[in-house]
């Protein structure tokens, strides 16, 4: 199993396509950072326009923590496509190249083979998120400095002390990894049924778009299925940045307002991953290799 995983990782990182995602992420983050560096003050004025009369804000609004939050909000919508580029190719790409039949004539178990492939896709996904963390958080901290974090939510604003932020990002990135692994697992499952990677990529993105629309629409008909859609839970990373307040409306350091939401969403995502990967194993074990 470990040898199979090593081989899969070797193949992933030998392919030029793998680095497209890393390059795209780098370009996007640098563009956002550049924009906020040049016009950050105007952006902050725009974001705080409705609250300026009610609040007096001291310190740097546009700091590294705030920039990272902006980047994550913008980027996590697009990362699934970059993950699909690799995950969709894991099985269908081998079928397309004709290497699947050669691989399966070797003395390996199909279950181990498929698990090694999913683990390789998962490692790629996690590395991509680590890369986002390095650029979006650490580089932003270097470029913009650090201060308390001030976020404007729908009906209220949240201020989180500088010393209370870092662990929240660690949690948010771990949760984002779980969400992206769900996308990878879905794409991986769909990859079983195709002989080129375009089909699974398009199918995955279609599923995400449709279920995201269903998750966000406030129509009673869809409310019953919303809790079961993985897209409903993918945005729960933001809960790490909602902090509890005491009776005097002061924030309580080290707390999360809706920790139960994070736990529930994590469970739903893990169940989806297990279902998609389990179904992949079942389908692949029965698959006739005709490519």
């Amino acid at each position, binding site marked *: 199993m470990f040898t199979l995983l090593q081989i899969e990782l070797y193949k992933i990182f030998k392919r030029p396509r793998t680095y497209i995602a890393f390059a795209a992420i780098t370009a996007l983050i640098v563009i956002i950072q550049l924009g906020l560096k040049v016009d950050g003050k105007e952006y902050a004025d725009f974001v705080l326009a409705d609250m300026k009369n009610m609040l007096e804000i001291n310190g740097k609004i546009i700091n590294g923590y705030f920039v990272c939050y902006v980047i994550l909000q913008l980027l996590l919508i697009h990362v699934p496509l970059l993950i699909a580029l690799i995950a969709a190719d894991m099985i269908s790409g081998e079928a397309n190249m004709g290497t699947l039949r*050669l691989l399966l004539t070797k003395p390996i178990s199909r279950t181990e083979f498929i698990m090694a492939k999913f683990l390789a896709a998962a490692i790629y996904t996690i590395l991509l998120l680590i890369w986002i963390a390095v650029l979006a958080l650490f580089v932003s901290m270097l470029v913009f400095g650090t201060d308390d974090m001030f976020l404007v939510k729908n009906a209220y604003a949240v201020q989180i002390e500088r010393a209370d932020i870092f662990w929240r990002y660690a949690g948010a990135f771990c949760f984002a990894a779980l969400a992206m692994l769900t996308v990878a697992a879905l794409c991986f499952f769909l990859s079983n049924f195709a002989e080129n990677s375009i089909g699974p990529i398009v199918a995955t993105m279609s599923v995400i778009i449709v279920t995201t629309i269903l998750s966000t629409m406030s129509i009673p008909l869809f409310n019953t299925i919303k809790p079961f859609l993985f897209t409903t839970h993918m945005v729960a990373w933001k809960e790490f940045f909602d902090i509890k307040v005491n009776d005097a409306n002061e924030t309580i350091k080290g707390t999360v307002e809706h920790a139960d939401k994070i736990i529930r969403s994590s469970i739903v995502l893990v169940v989806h991953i297990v279902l998609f990967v389990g179904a992949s194993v079942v389908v692949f074990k029965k698959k006739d290799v005709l490519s």
Partner: protein
Amino acid sequence: MQNIISVKGLTKQFHNLTAVNQLSFTVNNGDVYGFLGQNGAGKSTTLRMLLTLIEPTEGSIEVAGMDLLKHHKEVLRNIGAVIEKPDVYKYLSAYENVQLFAKLSGVRLSKEQIMQQLAMVGLQDRANDKVKTFSQGMKQRVGIAIALVHNPQIVILDEPTNGLDPQGIADIRNMILHLSRDLKKTVVVSSHLLSEIEQVATRVLIIDKGKKLVEGNADELFDPSETIVELETANNHFAFNQLEQSNWNNYLLRERKGNPVLKLNKKDIPQLHKDLVALNIELIAMQPKHSLEDYFLRITSANYS
């Protein structure tokens, strides 16, 4: 001779299509086993079932006394295969491909051993070149190097000469003979190029529409008394005249158009040669037609009628 592959009642059904129908055959240790059939006859499906790529609907396959489905890992350790096109990772070099598949086969090879493997198929000078720069014949040779990387007892080659030029076809033929004679491997080779099979196979199985038509020793299937010989001469009109007035008239097959064609016993070919000289026929080429091919066409067409 000891059976190394034993197939009984093998059937594969794809929805309404029966690709392989109650097929039974045995391959002996050391055979070069020619697997013949027209396109769509069920050759590739059968070989893929031998390699666990396709699950049989019915039947059993035993390799070296082990049930394939129960002991597939152990069985596949004894088999090396190239199925249809030799598709390997084009973005890797020949060296990297051999190294990767050696690991997958559970074999750790040193650099020297990988280079030896590539030298065996004549690719030692291109070891570090990406496979995407290789010709079809070279890719086929990489595929064979990969098939042999774990030193299997059985080598399965499915249509190994497809898409190759004449030199590539000759190289593959020599490789099969080398595997059989020098390395003592059992080789199962499928093809619709019957002339190629005839030159290497010791035993032959002919299938059509997924069913066995005949299985036997190549020597027995090859009937030397019915060898077809086509003559290419400088003047066919003159050649026909001369042959019709000679003892060879009874052996002439074709009408007076194209090249003269005779049906004779293979042992009479030297005498024909001498007589052509005596009859002043300027011979450009003499082409013995493959009797196995005739045999094949005869029995497959009988199957259609």
